[in-house]
């Protein structure tokens, strides 16, 4: 469904993605993991067409989204649902209006029909009857669920999740994880989840890809990743402070930035 070939991206001359290759199959849940600054969020932004690569291609159903015009991208994005890190609800709108937003933006559906769709979507995330509440009246976990209801409002083929467990307690994270798995299986949705939380990653992934310094260093099923002999992968999944992953990016770069030599 999505194939990334040799994706390269630089910001201010610094290489953030240095030749990413990745394939995501229809219906699978692919977890992209890695430490802060490894490029996983940058990769996600390329996959949804917010960033254009410096090199390489991103094929969605065989078509390179990196070469699409904005109008073509808009048409493709209708097939995408995105759950942002914070849920990204509009605080001035009710829960129901937030879920209705993509329907109002991307369709000419009648208001009565939109109201019914909102009810169906809220039921899917376990929030039936919450449509008239304001975001400020619900918990962080509920906001994520509303964000998810909004992400699936247009019946997307793919849902992208950016750190779905960020800022949530472990139980709420587990609830969101189960919802991601449920929706993927029930609706046949392809899911791409960016996270650095290992428990979640192993819980939800059909396959996982680990990024390090802008490259995919391992791809496989949770079992294959767990059994990986790569010390970088092992350090990351065990959360060990000691190992090959350096704490500082580059002391040389640091000294150069201070002294200019």
């Amino acid at each position, binding site marked *: 469904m999505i194939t990334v070939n040799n994706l390269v991206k630089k910001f201010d001359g610094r290489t953030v993605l240095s030749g990413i290759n990745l394939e995501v199959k229809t219906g699978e849940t692919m977890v992209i993991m890695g430490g802060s600054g490894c490029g996983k969020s940058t990769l996600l932004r390329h996959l949804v067409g917010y960033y254009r690569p410096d090199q390489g291609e991103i094929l969605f159903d065989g078509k390179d989204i990196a070469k699409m015009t904005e109008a073509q991208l808009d048409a493709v994005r209708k097939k995408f649902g995105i759950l942002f890190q914070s849920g990204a609800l509009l605080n001035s709108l009710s829960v129901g209006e937030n879920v209705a937003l993509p329907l109002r933006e*991307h*369709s*000419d*559906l*009648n208001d*009565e*029909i*939109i109201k*019914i*769709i909102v009810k*169906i*979507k809220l*039921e*899917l995330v376990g929030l039936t009857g919450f449509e008239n509440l304001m975001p400020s009246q619900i918990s962080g976990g509920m906001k994520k669920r509303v964000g998810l209801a909004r992400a699936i*409002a*247009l*019946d997307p083929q793919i849902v992208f999740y950016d750190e779905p467990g960020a800022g949530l307690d472990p139980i709420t994270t587990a609830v969101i994880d189960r919802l991601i798995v449920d929706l993927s299986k*029930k*609706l046949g949705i392809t899911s791409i989840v960016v996270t650095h939380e290992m428990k979640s990653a192993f819980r939800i992934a059909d396959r996982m890809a680990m990024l390090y310094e802008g490259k995919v260093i391992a791809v496989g099923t949770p079992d294959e990743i767990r059994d990986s002999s790569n010390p970088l992968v092992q350090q990351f999944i065990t959360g060990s402070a000691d190992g090959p992953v350096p704490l500082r990016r580059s002391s040389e770069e640091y000294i150069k930035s201070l002294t200019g030599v």
Partner: protein
Amino acid sequence: MIKIDVSEKNGWAVLAVDGQIDLHTSPDIRKELAGRAKAKKARIAIDLTRVSYIDSSGLATFIEAMQKLKKGGGEIALCGLSESVRHVFEVARLDSIFAIHASSDDLK
């Protein structure tokens, strides 16, 4: 594009839909249903034998029709759901709300 053929069977108005039911086509079905659902004690069956895909706007369109029909003492039934279409109803837990028949021949 979508095609809707209307026929009569055992006192039911049967709307046979041909095509995909999505954001673009569900308003056509809604239009076709609107006038019929207002009539008292109307019985409307939607034949989905030739429908390979239905999205949430399609589900919502049928629910709205059901609401209108119930007000006038009418009925709605669905026929000929393929496995994938039926699955969409099941996921939204709507399979128990609608009377679902294998084919329009089962309408009584």
